[in-house]
């Protein structure tokens, strides 16, 4: 009988990864979790609300982090990612790389460093819609609650100033990238997704027009801890948004971009339409769509949104978006496939409902079956490495969590098989 390593490695500390880690650990298995960002929680930490309940993502994360804090079976590393996987089910060697945070576990989050730091960087948490100090707490609910220094100031006087301001000796400017090997019996790949790069859709002009944003940026505009303190203001002039459009399938269901349907963008836009309506009661929303894909009981949510007369649905694939000179308003053109008319409409702001691209296994690793888009398939032939969440299909949070729970038992089977 071969020796089986009893660790489960989970790659990715978002909703799927955290769930997979917890479900396995609470059944009595040891888990190592690696997360690329400086904190756990992944993309949903940046979201204002979930559909259809319109509830805050931190609520569920708080419970999960509580479960994690009191479970000694989970070890996690932030700013960490695997760079190489070798071996086979029951016996993997994984090389992990940890990027320097320049702030040690001595950090108490007192904030003294941030007070003295003058350099500002684009805030990655707000997709660049705001600035943040070059030493920062990524967000209020960050877990672990610890500051991080942007590498751009390391080696400068600014960094030294921060170091001197820290009463607890928590800043280590000599911190280096660490690379080490771990052993695991099974691996869950839950690295999540990235928004499709909207500037690739040339005919929309993302990046050129300030008031053309993506749906993930919209989440930040609506969030109370976002760049506009939760007010929906357009980027060019901070004007309250009155007329707004959502362009569905921005890149999705498109042979030149993402041939698949991204699964959640319809529901996300329905939700964001409600954000706008709630925050700016005078506002009018237009959603340009091909099909509204509100599956199963999500149909109730669609029904609810449709009841708002200020939310209009127009069946159309938008052809072009251009900016009006002087005003910064956007002109949307296309064909109304319902009425068969040409559309030319002006909006204060336009949101592109961009799709999901899987963060699939892109490092040296044993072969794992994938579909032609890179989504990881789960079959009963290849065992030991399991995808979980949006690396398997573009999907909502609840389905990701279900899937991650399923991946956990698959991993358990891999280490208890022999």
């Amino acid at each position, binding site marked *: 009988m071969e020796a089986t390593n009893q660790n489960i490695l989970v790659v990715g500390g978002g909703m799927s990864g955290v769930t997979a880690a917890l479900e396995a650990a609470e059944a009595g298995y040891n888990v190592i979790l690696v997360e690329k960002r400086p904190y756990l929680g992944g993309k949903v930490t940046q979201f204002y609300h979930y559909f259809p309940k319109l509830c805050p993502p931190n609520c*569920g*994360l708080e419970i999960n982090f509580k479960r994690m804090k009191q*479970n000694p079976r989970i070890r996690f590393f932030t700013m960490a990612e695997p760079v190489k996987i070798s071996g086979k089910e029951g016996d993997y060697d994984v090389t992990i790389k940890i990027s320097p945070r320049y702030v040690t576990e001595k950090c108490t989050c007192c904030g003294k460093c941030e007070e003295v730091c003058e350099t500002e960087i684009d805030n990655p948490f707000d997709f660049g819609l705001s600035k943040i100090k070059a030493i920062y707490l990524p967000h209020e609910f960050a877990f672990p609650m610890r500051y991080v220094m942007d590498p751009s100031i390391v080696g400068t006087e600014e960094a030294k100033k921060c170091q001197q301001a820290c009463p607890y000796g928590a800043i280590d400017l000599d911190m280096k990238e660490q690379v080490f090997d771990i052993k695991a019996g099974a691996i869950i790949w839950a690295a999540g997704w990235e928004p499709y790069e909207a500037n690739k859709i040339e005919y929309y002009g993302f990046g050129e027009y300030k008031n053309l944003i993506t749906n993930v940026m919209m989440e930040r505009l609506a969030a109370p801890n976002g760049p506009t303190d939760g007010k929906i203001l357009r980027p060019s002039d901070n004007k309250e948004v009155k007329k707004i459009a959502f362009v569905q399938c921005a890149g999705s269901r498109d042979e030149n971009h993402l041939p698949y349907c991204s699964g959640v963008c319809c529901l996300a836009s329905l939700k964001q339409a409600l954000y706008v309506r709630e925050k700016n009661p005078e506002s009018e929303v237009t959603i340009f769509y091909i099909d509204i894909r509100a599956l199963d009981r999500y149909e109730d949510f669609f029904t609810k949104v449709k009841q708002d007369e200020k939310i209009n649905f127009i069946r159309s694939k938008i052809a072009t978006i251009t900016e009006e000179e002087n005003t910064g308003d956007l002109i949307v053109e296309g064909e109304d496939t319902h009425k068969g008319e040409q559309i030319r409409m002006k909006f204060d702001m336009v949101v592109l409902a961009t799709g999901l691209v899987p963060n699939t296994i892109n490092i040296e690793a044993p072969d794992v079956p994938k579909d032609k888009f890179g989504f990881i*398939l789960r079959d009963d032939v290849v065992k030991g490495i399991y995808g979980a969440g949006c690396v398997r299909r573009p*999907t909502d949070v609840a389905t990701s969590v279900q899937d991650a729970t399923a991946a956990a038992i698959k991993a358990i089977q891999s280490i208890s098989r022999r």
Partner: protein
Amino acid sequence: MEKKMGVYICTGCGIGDAIDIEPIKDLVDEEFNISICKEHPFLCSPEGVELIKQDIDNEGVNTIIICACSPRVNQDVFFFGPDKIVERVNLREHVAWSQEPKDEDTQMLAEDYVRMGCSKAKDMELPEPFKAEQEYSKDILVVGGGLAGMTAALEVAKAGYKAIIVEKEDSLGGFLKKMKKRVAPPYEDLYDTGLEELVKQVNDNPNIKVYTSAVVEKTSGAPGLFSVQIKTNGSVAEEKVGAIIQATGWVPYDPKRLESLGYGKFKDVITNVELEQMASNGGIKRPSDGQSPKNVLFIQCAGQRDSEHLPYCSSVCCLVTLKQAAYIKEQDPEAVCYVLFKDMRTVGQAEEFYKKSQLAGNIFIRGTITQIGEEGGKLFIEAEDEFLGEKIRLEELDLVVLATGMVPSSQPEETPKMKAPEGAEDADEEGMIEVPPDSGFYAKPALNLEYRQGPELPTLRYGFPDSHFICFPYETRRTGIYTAGCIRRPMETARVIDDATGAAMKAIQCVEMTEKGMAVHPRSGDLSYPEVNLQRCTQCKRCTEECPFGAINEDEKANPLFNPTRCRRCGTCMGACPERVISFKNYSVVMIGNMINVINVPEEEEEKPRILVFVCENDAYPAIDMAGIKRYKWSPYVRFIPLRCLGSLNLVWIADALSRGIDGILLLGCRHGDDYQCHFIKGSELATVRLSKISETLERLALESERVRFEEVGISDYWRIPQIIEDFMNTIEEVGPNPYKGF
């Protein structure tokens, strides 16, 4: 255990700048007789922790009161072993970061928090895990032997546990038996159903026992200790199991109700289910003349997305139609298929199959049917074509297929009725009202639980016993009982497999945690559980009625019978009990009551009101922490007491606090109603119901009702915290001081 307490005060993170430590040390000694009280400038550092460890080793300290940052952080740093009690006093977020430094009121606030912490630590005992007298079972019962049930059982078995399947039909397979092919990832083709192989795997697995032609007649007990009576072929078998997966699937929507679409009226109008059966049994034929159809129309959303029939989307029917159109083409490449639809819902990679179907020459018409009829033995329809913007007519149709939807097998054909409570407005002539879906008495029989709150799982709308939580999709309202597959929501086979696999995970996790005496989600790992002093119980039934998880049964005299392994440890029973006979080792009515009693209430002349705030520890408490991190300021007159859930709020605390001269009581809890956020389902709602009954107490004390208020606070509402407190302070100022001060 003999307690030896030690108090440790951190002066870092601005705490030392905000308050004087000496008076705190004095009060710890004078009021609580605790001789060990030390301060450190950086308590969470190795040196600070060492200071505490020294006292544990040398002085025998076993009850440690940490006066420093929020209990949400540094839990691992301040963990000194499972045999030590640790209580955290939040002097950072709730004092130093949110109050004026070196102010008299700030000092009083800090002192009160230290008092409350010392008092709590004094009353707290280490929980001892519950261990039942009976032997625990780790076997998993799977009710339903379709795709979901067989998958769940196999996954359980592959993880090394035993599974027992109970299937009502005489063979395994469920709906899969009726299916010809599956459409599944990567959605490039049709695949075999895999039924035979799956059934073989189940039958060959020594860890799986199968009962066919069997139903669950009775389920008694609790997680780890379930006893299940299975009626099979005239005899009754008994099995002991630890957890249950309900995978009883779905039934097709009754097509007889779709007469407007021609069903029952025209022979050649059939349902997608009927077509599937024909396809797997020798071929698709026109019912009227047995001919192979040439022109076929599929009508999507036949009943679904329709408030008259099924208001929800059945999610699989689009894909099913595409699959069935492929059958038709395969049978007769010359045949033409039309699909009349509203929205084509082929999400994710399934879009591939839609494209394939379009390329195959199938004709998709976006529109709504207005008429269906028969002419010369063929069918015709009229519809509003959305694309053309005009009425169209399709004639010479050989077959019309209604893409009907899925109904959960739990949905009763007729809503059951129950005796209406007194004064119910919607009661019928016989004094009966309809049972709501979220009652355990609503769903069709499948588990027959011997639970005081009903024999089946409470459901959501439309009868799905699904989770209400986005983040926790496996949470049902009965501990250790999980659902899987189409009983939860309509889903395609690929998702059924994933879903059942996840349910298997939850089931084995539950039996493992139960054996260790631990709670499952959301207080995972909690070892405390409610203990009851039955001698003082008045059989009022409030605890048995209010437990959100149906954990408490009743004996024939209405005494509560606690099932600790069903319990989620929220304390709702403790809050409900008017006799205060229910308590946990580390959480009790007395413990919180004593915390209230040690709050210093200044005389009226001092003009320092006191407000007590009961805070949900899951959401409102972190929100207050965030407000502190943001350095928001709020009144120094408030005192926060975290509760496991507002459902555990006992009204006696409010009465006691008011009679001590505390000026106002604020409750901060989760949103309730349809989109409730309470992790214990009903906690915050129950708290508001109880509050509505507080008027009696207030009247007795001749106090104003404005003194007690409930506010909904979500975890991200930290920005509202100062305003909520200020508004309440203003109200209290208007009402004036509580006349009971000094009594």
